[in-house]
């Protein structure tokens, strides 16, 4: 029991630290929001004014905005650790590795959800889509997709933090692995936005949930090998 208590406390300490650092430096959230707004704008220019066509591709656009923005946040998630050799400090800190991973994951999911919460209404406004009616369902899909994307994303962010060409390596490694998340989230969002119920896309939801569970188990276990030689 005490072991679990310590895991929870360490996870919470890590998440709290990340949020505090972010609130002070404001590096990630600003970049993410600005980028998201830019993406939504530019999509409009790239795709033209045809309202019907936009409506068709809207779910995909929404998730493109979510994922690219999330990417940006993930790329920075170990930034603080890279300064001043804090990676080594984490290595030398006694205790389990999983809580370090979960702490980082929680922070990343939080930031990505925050960005999504701001992107969604903007998206509804710019593309004239009613997102309010389906909000609970959309929130569920967003949660499942964001967690799935962030599980592998956090692990890869730790791995690529030390690499040359890290800005390129992270998306290169992350996107092929998260194709199930992308497909599942977009298809489910599509069904919801066109007035369908969640029941229609239950298989996609199950896929997303399965993905989340599998990697919520595999990634923390693998984290030890990323941190330590």
């Amino acid at each position, binding site marked *: 029991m005490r072991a679990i208590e310590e895991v929870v406390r360490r996870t919470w300490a890590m998440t709290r630290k990340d949020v505090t650092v972010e609130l002070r430096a404001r590096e990630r959230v600003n970049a993410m929001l600005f980028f998201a707004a830019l993406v939504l704008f530019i999509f409009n220019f790239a795709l033209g004014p045809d309202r019907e066509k936009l409506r068709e591709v809207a779910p995909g656009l929404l998730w493109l905005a979510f994922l690219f923005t999330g990417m940006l946040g993930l790329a920075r998630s170990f930034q603080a650790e890279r300064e001043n050799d804090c990676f080594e400090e984490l290595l030398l800190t006694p205790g389990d590795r999983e809580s370090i991973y979960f702490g980082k994951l929680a922070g990343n999911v939080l930031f990505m959800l925050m960005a999504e919460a701001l992107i969604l209404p903007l998206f509804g406004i710019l593309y004239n889509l009613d997102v309010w009616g389906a909000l609970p369902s959309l929130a569920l899909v967003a949660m499942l997709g964001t967690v799935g994307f962030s599980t*592998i994303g956090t*692990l890869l962010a730790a*791995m*690529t933090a*030390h*690499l*040359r*060409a890290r800005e390129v*390596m992270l998306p*290169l*490694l992350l996107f*092929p*692995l998260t*194709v*199930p998340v992308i*497909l*599942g989230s977009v*298809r489910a969002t599509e069904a919801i936005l066109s007035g369908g119920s969640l029941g229609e896309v239950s*298989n*996609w939801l199950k*896929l997303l949930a*399965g*993905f989340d569970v*599998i*990697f919520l188990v*595999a*990634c923390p276990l*693998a984290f030890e*090998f*990323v941190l330590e*030689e």
Partner: protein
Amino acid sequence: MEPRTRFATTLGAAAAIVLAVGIYLALVAAPPDAVMGQVQRIMYLHVPSILTAYVAFFIVFGASVLYLWKRDLRFDAVAVSSAEIGVLFTGITLATGSIWGKSTWGVWWTWDARLTLTAILFTIYVGYLMLRSFAEDPQAGARYGAVLAILGFLDIPLNHFAVYWWRTLHQPSSLLRPGGPSVARSMLVPLLVNMLGMVLLYTYFLLRRVQLERGRHRILEGRLKRGRRG
């Protein structure tokens, strides 16, 4: 010749013979497809390639797990070698699939389930090779690679479901169906022969590449030891 090298060479010779027979069967003995004609013969290269690639990537997974568990660099040598060969065979699959598609459907690329999955597999393992080469030192590369290989392997069934539900344009799998292969008997034999030949070829390449990698390990180790004694 060292026994290991002799074994590899024998294997290579066997592969060459089996493939020669396979190619003959594929190009000459097998009947042309009722619908697609002569072009369909590319299947005898396409299908064994992808199946061999799956074998290769399974070996990458197994070797990666063993490496992380035992920390024996020999396992890592097997992992990277198998990944390289797997990427090669996947590339062949994509190329042959593309050519087949062009002749059958008129387009170089379709986003059908199987081709898409193969392309995803290709990028995952190319990413694996890139990750290893960009790592700060070979041991970190081995470690990171092993983790990525395990994640990639866990990901494959998920990708499978996702892409299949998304698309089904390709013929449903004729070989791996619950009722047993549904390919015509006369086509099955050349297919299996080529399959065997490809697996033999893969094994031959693997043995040689692992030997090469182990040689590299020994050189690096020797360099370190020599450097230290000044």
